[in-house]
Structures are given as C-alpha cells and as structure tokens.
C-alpha cells in the first residue's frame, strides 16, 4: 500500500519517473521509519531512501532533543551542498501526499555495521584513513554557514550535566559510579565554549556509511543542535562505539591524534581537554540511555527483549567510567 503513495509522490517530483520498485522497510520504531526503494525511470533507476514519521506520528521518541525531520532534511542538503559526505535530498514530504512527515534522499551504497567495518577485508584500505577523514568531516559540519541553518535547540556542558542528572534520577536505580561521574563532570565543567557551532550530536558508528574508499555519508541528524563543537569529537571516542577495538579511541579505527590532525587541516582548532570532558559525558550519557531503555521495555506493551538487554549494558559504561576516572595501577 505504501507503494501506491510512494509511486504517486515520486511521479510528482521526479519528471519521467513511472513508479517505484523493491520497496522494503529497513529499521526504526513505530514513530520513525526508514524505507529503501528504487525510483523506476526510463533513463535508469535511482536508489532512494524514505525517512519518515508515518501519518499520525508527529512526535519523535525523544521530543525534547529531536531536531525534527524537516530540520534533518535541511541539514543533510546543506551538508551535501558544502561538499561533505551526505546524501542529496530529493524531496521533502507534503501533507497531501499521505506519507506522513519526512523526506526522500538518494541511497548511498556502503556499510554502517561497525563490526563489519572494523573486521572485513573489504574495508582494510579504508580503516587506516578513517580517523583522519572523520576529523575532517566533523570540522566541515562545524563550519556549516550559521545563517542557513534551521532552528535547533542549544546546549552547553552545564545544561547537559543537569539534563543527565535529571534523567538518571528519573530511573530511580542507585548507581554509585554514575554519581561519581556526575560529581566529576560538575567539578570539571569547562563552561560555555568560546565558539558555538552546529553539532551533529550522534557522530559515531552506525551513522556513517563506509565504503572501501572511506566515509561516504553521515546520517541521522536527529540530535543536531548548537553547542560546543568538541562534543562530536568526544562522543565518537566513547568506548561503547569502539566495538572491541579499545586501544583505538576513534571508533576502534584510529588514535585521537589522527582525528585531531584531520580536524585541524581545515584551520579549525581542537581543545583536547574539552574533548576528554565530552568523552566522559558521552560515556555517562550512553549509560543513562541504557537505563532508560530498561524502563521503555518495562512500559512497552510487547516487552521488546532487545531493549531489555540494552538495559543490561549500562554496566559496560560503569567499567568505562571507572577506567577514565579511577584507573587501577597495573
């Protein structure tokens, strides 16, 4: 049934298109869906992705943090136009098309699964260059022209500490290690950044499409906001995104210095102390998200066991916080 609406929609924005084929749902929860399909065109089919909130689902799973699908479309197009690895946006959905809210973009071929990127032979040539490349890409995101950016929330280290403390307390489960991390963050809060830029907000494995040649696209701008650019560099170093490659902080791919070098090639500056602060913040943030996943599991009518098991991953962030804040003598 989605084929009918998609076919009609595609015919309207893509002259000559005769319909769609190979429509398949990729992932997402009830309120956010991702679909893959081909636009059938006499000049050659075009691989496409639909990202949408279906009709009736206005809100995102984390409404206070989400940028919104309209803003995501603007950001992706802007990134694409600035020469960053980002898919071209083909169409922003209109209410009368009956597909809900969202947008259609070009499908970029490649891999998003970290374990494959870190282990498969196909990516052997890409792995050594990715940390530096990702540094350059982050710098490009942080340099996107402010005047063209959509309306987004603003966040500072201080507001984020308060948010995390509130979210942690709402789980009503005592975690002395998280308390220790909250104290550390409050004691080491660097205050507002000298420079406020666009921050991707979820710059990590899973949101990168990687090919044998390197980064092909950065996806999922749902958590984009204005804030300290060093946040993105800290988040990608969180141990949970190293997928076992714990001695290579940048997503299990390379060293912080590689990423910093790529970042600074563009003329932007890295503040390593702030990056480390955001890595601690990010580790705690993922841990608290795991705890909230447990609550969602308990409250959801179908008790999804994946969410239940993510709840049991909070302890991974506890050991990583201890390794950061209270390392043992070897």
């Amino acid at each position, binding site marked *: 049934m989605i084929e009918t609406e998609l076919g009609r929609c595609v015919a309207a924005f893509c002259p000559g298109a005769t319909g769609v084929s190979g429509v398949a749902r990729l992932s997402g929860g009830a309120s956010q869906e991702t679909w893959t399909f081909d636009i059938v065109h006499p000049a050659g089919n075009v691989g496409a992705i639909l990202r949408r909130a279906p009709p009736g689902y206005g809100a995102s799973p984390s409404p206070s943090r989400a940028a919104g699908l309209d803003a995501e479309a603007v950001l992706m197009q802007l990134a694409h136009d600035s020469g960053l690895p980002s898919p071209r946006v083909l169409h922003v959905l209109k209410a009368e098309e009956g597909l809900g809210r969202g947008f259609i973009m070009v499908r970029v071929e490649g891999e998003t699964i970290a374990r494959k990127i870190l282990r498969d032979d196909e990516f052997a040539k890409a792995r050594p260059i990715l940390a530096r490349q990702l540094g350059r890409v982050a710098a490009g995101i942080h340099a996107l022209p402010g005047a063209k950016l959509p309306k987004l929330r603003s966040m500072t280290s201080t507001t984020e500490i308060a948010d995390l403390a509130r979210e942690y307390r709402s789980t009503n489960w*005592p*975690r*002395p*290690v998280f*308390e*220790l991390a*909250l*104290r550390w963050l409050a004691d080491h809060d660097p205050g507002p950044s000298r420079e406020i830029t666009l921050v991707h907000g979820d710059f990590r494995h899973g949101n990168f499409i990687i090919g044998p040649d390197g980064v092909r696209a950065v996806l999922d701008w749902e958590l984009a906001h204005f804030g300290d650019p060093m946040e993105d560099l800290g988040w990608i170093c969180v*141990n949970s995104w*190293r997928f*076992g*490659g*714990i001695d290579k902080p940048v997503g299990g791919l390379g060293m912080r210095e590689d990423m910093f070098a790529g970042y600074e090639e563009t003329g932007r500056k890295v503040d390593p102390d702030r990056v480390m602060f955001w890595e601690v913040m990010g580790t705690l943030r993922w841990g608290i998200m795991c705890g909230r996943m447990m609550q969602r599991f308990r409250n959801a009518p179908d008790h999804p*066991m*994946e969410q*239940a*098991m993510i709840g*049991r*991953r909070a*302890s*991974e962030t*506890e*050991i*990583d916080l*201890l*390794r950061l*804040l*209270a390392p*043992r003598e*070897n």
Partner: protein
Amino acid sequence: MQDEPTPTELIQAVADFLRAEITPVIKGHNAFKLRVGINALDLVTRQLALEGPGDTAEAARLKALLGIDGSVMELNRALAEKIARGEVDLDTPGLKEHLWQTTMDKLAVDQPNYASYKRELGN
C-alpha cells in the same frame, strides 16, 4: 522444596536447543532477535550462579564503608546519596576498590566478553 531439574539446568537446556536446532533455520531480523534471546538466557544462567555470593560480599563492603546496616539496595542508595553530596569520594579509603569490585561482578554477569572487562581481568 522444589524438584529437579534446577532453573539453571532448564534454562541451559532451552538455550542449547535454540542454539543448536533453531539458529541454523532462522533468517533475517528474527535471527538477530533469536541471538538476543539466547544471550538473555545465558545472562540469567550466569546471574543465578553469581548473584548470591556477589551481593553478600557487596553488602559486607558497603556496611564497612558506610558504617550502617541494611539491604544491598538500601546500602547502594545510601552510598549514591553520599557521593552526590560529596561526603564520600575517591579519597575515601575503600571506595575505589569497592566500586571496581562491584562493577567487575556486574560485568561477569552482564557482559563477560566486553573488551574493557577482559582487559581489567588480566590486570
């Protein structure tokens, strides 16, 4: 008294069946969910074996650290509040060792293959 087999034996038997007989014939997203399910059963097996002694030792450490009595949950709440208020920190004798031991005990149940845990086990 409940009869045999034990909960651990029952769960292991189910997990072994799913691993050996069902995994090879399931594909796609359900194969992923099956793997998650088997992981959950294995986790429960580890918890049944390790939780009792772990909690007993944890409660003893907490009582010594805090100088109060209570359930392991009450003691954890008390420690969390003391850290939040700054009354206990990493300079407090015994805190660091307690947090490390408690966290290692959690990982032994939750995720014994987690790379940070395996690294720290070797230390």
